[in-house]
């Protein structure tokens, strides 16, 4: 009999309490690199609407995590990714699409200065609602958690989104919506468990 010799993905292990040493060393006071990657998503004047997203990652007791790292990945305002795998056009040269935040040292709150993403098609051609992909790691998280940030003020697009519409528990959809605050910024809190548990994705 022949053998299928596919490899297996390396098993994940927790990022541990010191992920910031490895991924945002300047934040921890270790000055080896010029700066921490992912702190500037805008490298010049950008197209589209500039937005700020803030949030906090909470554990099942409601305690904020202060040792997490959150990364986001998104297209530019026109829906194009600054990626080698982008074949539909050229993304805004002043927008990286990728952000990384260690959270505030005291409160754990993360902040991203970014742009409102454009819409991107689903594999079958239907348009998805504007969204940002988020990835969360921390001590106690054995495998990084993927979720998505959609926007509360995109009600019509959200109502037709191929993924949002197939979620069985529609009452959990608000956990995926960034909410506009009085100061104009968006709020996106992540709850790892409990009644407000964020919807996490297996993609």
């Amino acid at each position, binding site marked *: 009999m022949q053998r299928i010799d*596919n*490899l*297996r*993905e*390396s*098993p*994940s*292990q*927790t*990022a*541990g*309490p*010191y992920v910031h*040493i*490895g*991924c945002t*060393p300047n934040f*921890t006071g*270790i000055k*080896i690199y*010029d700066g921490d*990657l992912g702190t500037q998503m805008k490298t010049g004047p950008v197209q589209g609407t500039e937005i700020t997203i803030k949030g906090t990652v909470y554990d*099942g*007791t409601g305690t904020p995590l202060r040792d997490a790292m959150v*990364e986001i*990945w998104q*297209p530019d305002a026109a829906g194009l*990714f600054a*990626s*080698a*795998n*982008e074949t539909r056009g050229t993304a805004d040269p002043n927008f990286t699409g*990728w952000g990384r935040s260690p959270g505030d040292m005291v409160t754990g709150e993360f902040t991203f200065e970014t742009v409102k993403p454009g819409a*991107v*098609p*689903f*594999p*079958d051609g239907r348009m*998805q609602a504007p*969204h940002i*992909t988020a*990835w969360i790691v921390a*001590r*106690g*998280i*054995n*495998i*990084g958690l*993927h979720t998505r940030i959609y926007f509360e003020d995109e009600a019509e697009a959200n109502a037709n989104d191929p*993924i949002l519409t197939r979620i069985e*528990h529609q009452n*959990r959809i608000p956990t995926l919506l960034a909410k506009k605050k009085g100061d104009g910024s968006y709020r996106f809190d992540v709850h*790892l*468990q409990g009644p407000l*548990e*964020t*919807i*996490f994705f*297996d*993609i």
Partner: protein
Amino acid sequence: MSIRNTPPKRGGFIPRDREWQPDALTPPYKTSIKRSPQAALLSFPSTLSEETSPVFGHNLIGDLDNDLILNYAAPGQSAIGPRIIVHGRVLDENGRGVPGALLEFWQANAGGRYRHKKESYLAALDPNFGGCGRTITGEDGSYEFRTVQPGPYPWPNGMNDWRPAHIHFSVFGHGFAQRLITQMYFEGDPHIKLCPIVGVLKSQEAVDALTGLLDMNRTVPMDSRAYKFDIVLRGRRQTYFENRKEGL
């Protein structure tokens, strides 16, 4: 405009094997208890949002970024500890090398102490050791860096839990769906069997997949030993014949 047939697009990512990967809730690793989602994950096929990823150029990397012995050391000095080279390849599940992958690594010093203000272990800091480095894989997915072998250390979980010596790795492939953080252990470390964090792995095969092997062929005589550690990221489906609407 007439409808015409066009070549099919590349397939999406092969689904992650959740029977192989650790579960979120692993009670012997206590911190996981309140940090593990309890609802089922929402499964769906990868989309452009997960099939794309930021690009990191080789020009990002400084001369000493992959040399933890020197990258934090005062001029003329070097970090203390067993000198080792860690090398290997980043591959995908189809066995192909992943070029241009950003690897970031971090670790305790040779005494088992991290350079972090929340770290309370009494082992001494090494003034010449920062504990982090990074590199980008070559055309065949290969990488290497030089460091000192980290020490085992105690951590607050049970009354007397010790981590085996390990190096943390953060890996970017070509799609955000491949994003991975893991740890490398060292062949022969007796703490591997005892550690509740290693214990979240579901099989000996999974432990072996994270255990670097002494590689005498890559040692530098009278200078450094070498360990080999390959990393496998998710692969994409290879078939050209994806389900699609004809004519699109």
